[in-house]
């Protein structure tokens, strides 16, 4: 109830600033007149009465400002004035304005791009995998060189058959492929994976099926022709 009053009265003060400041002036003015009348009734001369009353009330503008400063909409009004002023200043120097707009938009764009990429790579769990937190990578490190090296297929089968702490081990490698669409071939970069790859990740196809165990018979091979739906 009182919050509603706060909001509606404040909004009224904002939309009808002249009326609300006139209200305060009238109220102070009335106070002053009453004070003068009371002083006269107490036996003062009209001049003295007026002087005494003015001394007591102070100047009307001062009182009005004190009252206005105590209201929340005054802060909003000041902010609006500041905003209007800055817009005016920006319009007066269009070159400066466009440079600022350009710099800010480039900055925002760059930050957004970097964040979206970082979000997808670093923070979001692997899409489709049933339990990404239990997924680990096995790398073969060559001590002589700095960094990893590819594992052989026998190495993969060796690890796969003996792993006891993992529910499954899948392998993947990079390969160059050619996709033909309507007579034209496109060279694409793809991954060649072991037949259990999707099973280990826990990915389920939305439609159809992934590889069957018997399709995984030949190591390092892939169907010669893939038909893309």
């Amino acid at each position, binding site marked *: *109830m*009182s919050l509603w*009053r*706060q909001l509606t*009265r*404040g909004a009224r003060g904002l939309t009808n600033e002249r009326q609300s400041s006139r*209200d*305060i002036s*009238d*109220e*102070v*003015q*009335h*106070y002053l*007149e*009453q*004070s003068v009348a*009371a002083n006269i009734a107490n036996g003062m001369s009209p001049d003295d009465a007026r002087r005494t009353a003015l001394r*007591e*009330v*102070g100047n009307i503008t*001062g*009182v009005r400002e*004190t*009252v206005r400063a*105590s*209201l929340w909409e005054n802060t909003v009004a000041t902010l609006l004035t500041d905003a209007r002023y800055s817009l005016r200043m920006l319009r007066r120097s269009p070159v400066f304005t466009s440079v600022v707009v350009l710099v800010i938009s480039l900055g925002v764009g760059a930050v957004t791009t970097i964040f979206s990429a970082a979000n997808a790579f670093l923070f979001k769990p692997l899409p489709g995998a049933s339990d990404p937190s239990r997924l680990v990578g096995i790398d073969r490190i060559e001590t002589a060189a700095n960094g990893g090296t590819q594992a052989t297929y026998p190495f993969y089968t060796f690890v796969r058959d003996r792993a006891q702490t993992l529910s499954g081990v899948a392998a993947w490698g990079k390969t160059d492929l050619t996709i033909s669409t309507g007579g034209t071939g496109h060279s694409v970069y793809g991954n060649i994976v072991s037949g259990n790859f999707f099973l280990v990740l826990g990915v389920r196809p939305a439609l159809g099926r992934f590889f069957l165990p018997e399709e995984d018979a030949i190591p390092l091979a892939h169907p010669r022709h893939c038909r893309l739906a």
Partner: protein
Amino acid sequence: MDQPSTDVIQGTLDMLILKSLSLEPMHGFGVARRIEQISRGVFKVNPGSLMVAFQRMERAGLLNAEWRQTENSRRAKFYSLTRAGTKQLGIETEDWTRRAAAVARLLRAEG
């Protein structure tokens, strides 16, 4: 009036306004006058503080304000208590009585 009047004790202005208005609806000067008279000139209300308090209390829903036309065709704002205002007066009076009694006891205590 030999002794000079002072501002009202901090934090009691709202209570004094509520009390004055509980008798009858009044305009600002009326409230100031009443506080001064009933306190026998001990307290004098600053008009600025009074107006600020009116605005705040009206928005808090303690007072209702109404513009009335005076005899010399001026506008005057009359304030009256709302139900919440009456309730608030009860709360503040009780609180004040408790505190004042405590201070009185402290001042009377010896040794």
